[in-house]
């Protein structure tokens, strides 16, 4: 501001500052009464807007923001979603994150379902001291990094299930469905040789024997495998009762070849592509009877909030949300709730408030693992919290099988699959 050069300007300035002081005083006395247009809460959303799974993230976040704003916002502050398309690139995500914090001044960032991207952003959340939560990536390294250096990395939260946790949930379901239900005794683990399946397979190897399934073999195949014949032949040679899967990069090809080879063993476990509603068409129906883990399913009311969200989403966008949409929707609510409890959007206070989250979202009850846990800031899993679902493709539809309380169908298998119900 240029120094005042004449008396008129000075008296105007005096009057101005008096006015400002009185307004400030009023603000101090009755903040809510006078705060008719307070600064909005900005949440940056960095996602792969072109990918099937990623496009739901900003869309779902917007729905959550609209709902919260319709109810008056957070203490009168509206939520504004600032969206960035990262084209599935880590480099672009890093740039977007820097822009979001430095120029657009967001209070928190919701980002990506790809582990590679999340791991690239994690250190930037620490450097720029901004709360960052991922609605979809599965790598255990995300939370391991937080455990390794809590003070620096505490700003990151893992809003989805880690590979290790996923293995545990698959085992829980396998116990009920396969061991107790179908009296199965043996299994072969089949997973793609990638970084995310490291902890997944370790989890499988540990928990499957505990529930009563003996692991006969463990096959890891190159993620750019196109010919699965040798793999299925190898599996069949061991004669297991079930194939426990860990696939994400591939899906259509092994499934189609499984059917065309008429492998007599059912598939059960993690198969990311099977969660897509277009998977039946992509495989020309070969996915019939494949059982896969998911956090949502058509018509399944995991919590009272699930189906209303799905309705709102499909009404607004004309298609069903991907799994990351559910968690992104919850993440906006979680951030808003934390800001409300902290009374401020300051990052340090926000971190503390988020650690105390106890929120019923669309996929279950969300609580974060506390400091000291090897997976600090990851989701707590288990009955009453988040269990996930096990769904089976039947006649073009995804039908939920587990937990029993949320099941809307019974297991069915095509004729070439031999279920060894050892009675």
């Amino acid at each position: 501001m240029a120094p005042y050069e004449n008396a008129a300007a000075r008296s105007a300035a005096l009057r101005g500052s008096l006015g400002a002081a009185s307004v400030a005083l009023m603000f101090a006395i009755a903040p809510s009464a006078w705060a008719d247009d307070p600064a909005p809460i900005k949440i940056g959303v960095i996602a792969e807007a072109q990918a099937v799974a990623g496009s739901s993230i900003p869309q779902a976040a917007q729905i959550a923001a609209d709902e919260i704003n319709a109810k008056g916002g957070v203490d009168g502050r509206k939520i504004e979603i600032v969206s960035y398309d990262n084209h599935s690139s880590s480099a672009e995500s890093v740039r977007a994150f820097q822009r979001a914090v430095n120029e657009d001044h967001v209070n928190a960032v919701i980002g990506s379902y790809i582990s590679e991207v999340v791991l690239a952003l994690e250190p930037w959340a620490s450097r720029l001291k901004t709360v960052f939560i991922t609605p979809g990536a599965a790598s255990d390294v995300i939370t391991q990094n937080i455990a390794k250096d809590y003070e620096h990395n505490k700003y990151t939260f893992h809003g989805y299930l880690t590979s290790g946790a996923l293995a545990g949930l698959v085992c829980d379901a396998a116990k009920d469905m396969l061991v107790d239900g179908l009296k199965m005794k043996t299994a072969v683990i089949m997973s793609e040789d990638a970084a995310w399946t490291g902890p997944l397979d370790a989890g499988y190897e540990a928990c499957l024997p505990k529930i009563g399934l003996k692991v006969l073999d463990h096959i890891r195949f190159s993620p750019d495998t196109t010919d699965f014949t040798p793999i299925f032949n190898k599996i069949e040679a061991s004669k297991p009762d079930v194939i426990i899967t860990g696939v994400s990069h591939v899906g259509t090809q092994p499934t189609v070849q499984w059917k065309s080879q008429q492998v007599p063993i059912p598939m059960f476990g993690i198969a990311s592509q099977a969660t897509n509603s277009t998977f039946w068409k992509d495989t020309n129906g070969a996915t019939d009877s494949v059982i896969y883990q998911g956090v949502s399913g058509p018509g399944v009311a995991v919590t009272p909030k699930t189906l209303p969200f799905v309705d709102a989403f499909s009404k607004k966008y004309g298609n069903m949300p991907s799994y990351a949409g559910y968690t992104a929707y919850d993440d906006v609510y979680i951030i808003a709730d934390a800001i409300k409890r902290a009374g401020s959007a300051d990052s340090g206070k926000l971190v503390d408030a988020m650690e105390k989250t106890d929120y019923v979202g669309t996929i279950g009850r969300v609580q974060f693992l506390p400091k000291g846990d090897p997976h600090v800031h990851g989701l707590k899993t288990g009955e009453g919290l988040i269990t996930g679902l096990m769904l089976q493709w039947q006649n073009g539809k995804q039908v939920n099988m587990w937990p029993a309380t949320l099941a809307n169908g019974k297991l069915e298998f095509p004729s070439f699959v031999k279920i060894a119900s050892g009675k």
Partner: protein
Amino acid sequence: MLFWQILIDGFAISSLYALGATGFTLIFGVTGVLNLSHGAIMVAAAVAAWAASGNFGAGAYVGAVFGVVVALLLALATYYLIVRRLQLSRAVREEEKEIFILTATLLWGIMIQEAIAYLFTNNAKTVLPIVDGVVTILGVRTPANEIFTAFVCWATIGALWLFVNRTLAGKAVLAASMNPRGVTLLGIELSTVYVGVWAIYGALAGVAGVLLGMFLGVSSYSAGPLTASAFSIVVLGGLGSVSGSLIAAYVVGYLETLTAYLISPAYRAIPALLLLVAVMYVRPRGLLGRR
């Protein structure tokens, strides 16, 4: 039992590689062009077949034919729009033309790949198979589709052989690969020969692509690896030699299958890559290479 499994499975994969590589080497042998959009054309054929048969419900046969036609058109487009344009260009020096054509076909391949991803997403797709069910050969339960694949591959290669060796047009093609100028002296229009060869190439790539789509499935991401694979096989066998490519295709196919069965499916691609590196260092012109 394992032996028969390896034999049969390896045979189907190798036949598919052979068909893809044959088209690639044919184009190089006759026109001197290394078409880096090869993989993209194959994927386009497969996705077109998938779209027609599965998505729009035209049935497996119609879908397959449609896929081949799409590849044919793309191959001709590649020739007219890109290769011919550069070959006749005066702005590019002779010794640089090869490199420019390589770069241009690479870009063209990327365009096709991205167009596929944009229109149909990059999710993997499988083409509705013409033949269904399984048969048991020597105790090995094999999908009938696999046998169909190997059969069609060899039928196509056989037809190509007949064409080149028994028909006048085919002999003109062979002559053009050896001595283009000589061919023109005989009164045969060289450009007609080229168009013919590209059309044949399109058909070969189309059949290979559709079969691949039925047998294993493709996605827009497959384009690059398919080109690299065809390229490797052709170099192994010797650029320009069709029989060399056939042999090399089986070597690579069986090498991969053996690795997948006996060592680990995780390392499937590695021995073939190592073999290629070895060939590059020791005998760069490949098994039966001429140029």
